[in-house]
């Protein structure tokens, strides 16, 4: 009876969902203007006050899980718990001002109908307001504050995603009115995924691949592309060179909807960070929780997994670092991690060791391709 209750609650979990809208520039400008007007109204009222800025809380305590019922995709999302930026608290006053400064910059950018990267925004803020901004991290965090305040996506603010992702393999991409790009002929460097989400939305996609393989590391992606593994196993290769950025996830999500029959398989290192990367593609993230849930995909864990350890020579195993243990702890505490993954994670922690995909080269440089082929043919992924 308890289980039935729990199950039915899953149907309504989306009611708690808090999301960032994807809006055209004039609507975002309007939201900024409304924020300013509200602030002034309260300041100018008979009982004047400096209002705090209410931001959706981007912490695990405000995160929820949307479990797949009818589809096979689950995701993390944020609910309606708020934190505030206040001018009144001495140490936090600068954070409050930073939010307004970023809104001001974004307003100007939107009027000029430009798009900037987070780095370019950093240069501007560093030079315009040197007392308030001194590092890229501060700028990135403040941008997320603005997203949480105005409830509009980062891209809607005029800020492009970083372009770290690459695609190679059996897929044809075409920007409107441009030539078709054949990603199997791009060499080992692949096709660079743009940070402009609108452009990615407009790409036309065609493929004859049977699988999509998401690769954690650039070096592995390059090796697989160079060896034309995507011709031996008809596939599309994708990497974000580490933790995936929104643009790479966006494109993967588009591919998963355009080609729903293609299983998405992940190749990551045997360590908690590798699993965390897989989970980001699979469930989204809390840090960008207002947007990231949209791009969750049903990614399956191909390797490296516990049963592959027998293929790895002892000298390639290294002890887990403190950072690994931290990541493992936060993964274990996440409600979204399924049973299989928990078992693998427990195995990792028990063994206390980590291994990189490169360890498979011990058996020869072409071993990786054979390993992939064997696992795929055996449908050995979870």
């Amino acid at each position, binding site marked *: 009876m308890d289980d039935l209750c729990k199950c039915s609650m899953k149907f309504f979990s989306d009611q708690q969902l808090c999301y960032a809208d994807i809006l055209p520039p004039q609507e975002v400008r309007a939201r900024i203007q409304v924020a300013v007007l509200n602030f002034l109204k309260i300041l100018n009222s008979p009982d004047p006050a400096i209002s705090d800025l209410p931001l959706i809380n981007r912490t695990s305590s405000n995160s929820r899980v949307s479990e797949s019922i009818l589809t096979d995709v689950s995701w993390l999302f944020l609910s309606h718990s708020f934190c505030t930026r206040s001018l009144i608290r001495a140490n936090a006053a600068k954070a409050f001002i930073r939010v307004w400064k970023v809104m001001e910059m974004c307003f100007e950018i939107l009027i000029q109908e430009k798009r900037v990267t987070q*780095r370019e925004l950093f240069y501007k803020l560093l030079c*315009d307001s040197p*007392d308030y901004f001194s590092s890229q991290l501060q700028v990135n965090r403040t941008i997320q504050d603005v997203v949480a305040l105005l409830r509009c996506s980062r891209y809607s603010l005029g800020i492009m995603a970083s372009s770290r992702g690459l695609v190679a393999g059996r897929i044809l991409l075409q920007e409107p009115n441009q030539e078709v790009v054949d990603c199997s002929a791009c060499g080992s460097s692949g096709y660079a995924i743009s940070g402009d989400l609108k452009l990615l939305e407009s790409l036309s996609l065609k493929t004859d691949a049977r699988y999509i393989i998401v690769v954690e590391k650039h070096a592995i992606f390059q090796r697989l592309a160079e060896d034309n593994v995507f011709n031996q196993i008809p596939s599309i290769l994708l990497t974000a060179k580490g933790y995936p950025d929104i643009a790479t996830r966006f494109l993967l999500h588009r591919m998963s909807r355009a080609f729903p029959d293609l299983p998405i398989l992940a190749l990551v290192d045997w360590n908690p960070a590798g699993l965390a990367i897989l989970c980001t593609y699979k469930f989204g993230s809390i840090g960008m929780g207002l947007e990231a849930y949209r791009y969750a995909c049903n990614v399956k864990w191909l390797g490296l997994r516990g049963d592959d350890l027998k293929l790895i020579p002892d000298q390639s195993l290294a002890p887990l670092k403190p950072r690994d243990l931290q990541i493992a702890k936060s993964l274990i505490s996440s409600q979204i991690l399924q049973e299989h993954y928990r078992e693998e994670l427990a195995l990792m922690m028990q063994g206390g060791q980590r291994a990189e995909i490169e360890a498979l080269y011990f058996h020869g440089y072409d071993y990786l391709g054979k390993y992939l082929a064997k696992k795929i043919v055996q449908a050995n992924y979870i």
Partner: protein
Amino acid sequence: MAKSMKLAGLKSVENAHDESVWTATWVPATDSRPALLLTGSLDETVKLWKPDELELVRTNTGHCLGVVCVAAHPSGVIAASASLDSLVRVFDVDTNFTIATLEAPPSEVWQMQFDPKGTTLAVAGGGSASIKLWDTATWRLVATLSIPRPEGPKPSDKSSSKKFVLSVAWSPDGRRLACGSMDGTISIFDVARAKFLHHLEGHYMPVRSLVFAPEPDSWTLYSASDDGHVHIYDAEGKAIIGAMSGHASWVLSVDVSPDGEALATGSSDKTVRLWDFKMRAAIQTMSNHTDQVWAVAFRPGQGDRLASVSDDKSISLYHCS
């Protein structure tokens, strides 16, 4: 009795560039890396060096003529390099990504300096007899501070070429700009009102380098001239406080240590000298260079390092104590 400073040679790199090294500046430390030395040369490249071993971090190419000046933003994130082709390239120090390219008419880009806050870049305008001010957030030209033309019997081009502006320096509070001209005059401007205030007389030959003393003596201005002397001025009171001699030839560069205790100069007599203010004389001479010393620069922060660069293509690093 104030402690007296001393220099000790730490490291030199011969053939640091393929040609004369004309300019050097320190890029302040950021959260992720320590302070670095930036040098520019006639060989059209800009190089980034890591102290104390002076290992080469990166070489930036792309300028079409020799690099006359390099300047660093106080945050240490951004820097600019200017070359004889009158282009200023603004770039991210760690990635070498080009942030902006500023254009000016020929021979109108010489020395440049970011203001202490980093909101404005002042560029000595050479033949335009002015200083150009660029806003660093938008990279637009926001002001041109012109040296007023002297009243003369007939207006001629000759008078403006005498005011050819070579050097520029910001006061520590960012309110005053000083520039040095080929005829030896130094002009002081009020930045906020974009107004020329007055001239400082005393030199009769090109003033190639200027630097304000750090707080609290921030009206004190040091100047280096081809007449071989270093002058100490009160920039607000328009008076010359003192003059220091000792170099045998043109003084090409002057820099003050961050604590204001020491002054270093580089000269075409191939030496680097350290000066004592009380004695108004050089207390130490370093002669390791074999040709003109174009630039000297104290490391910001502790000021425990001094760098010098020369026509002999080498760069040297000294320890200050």
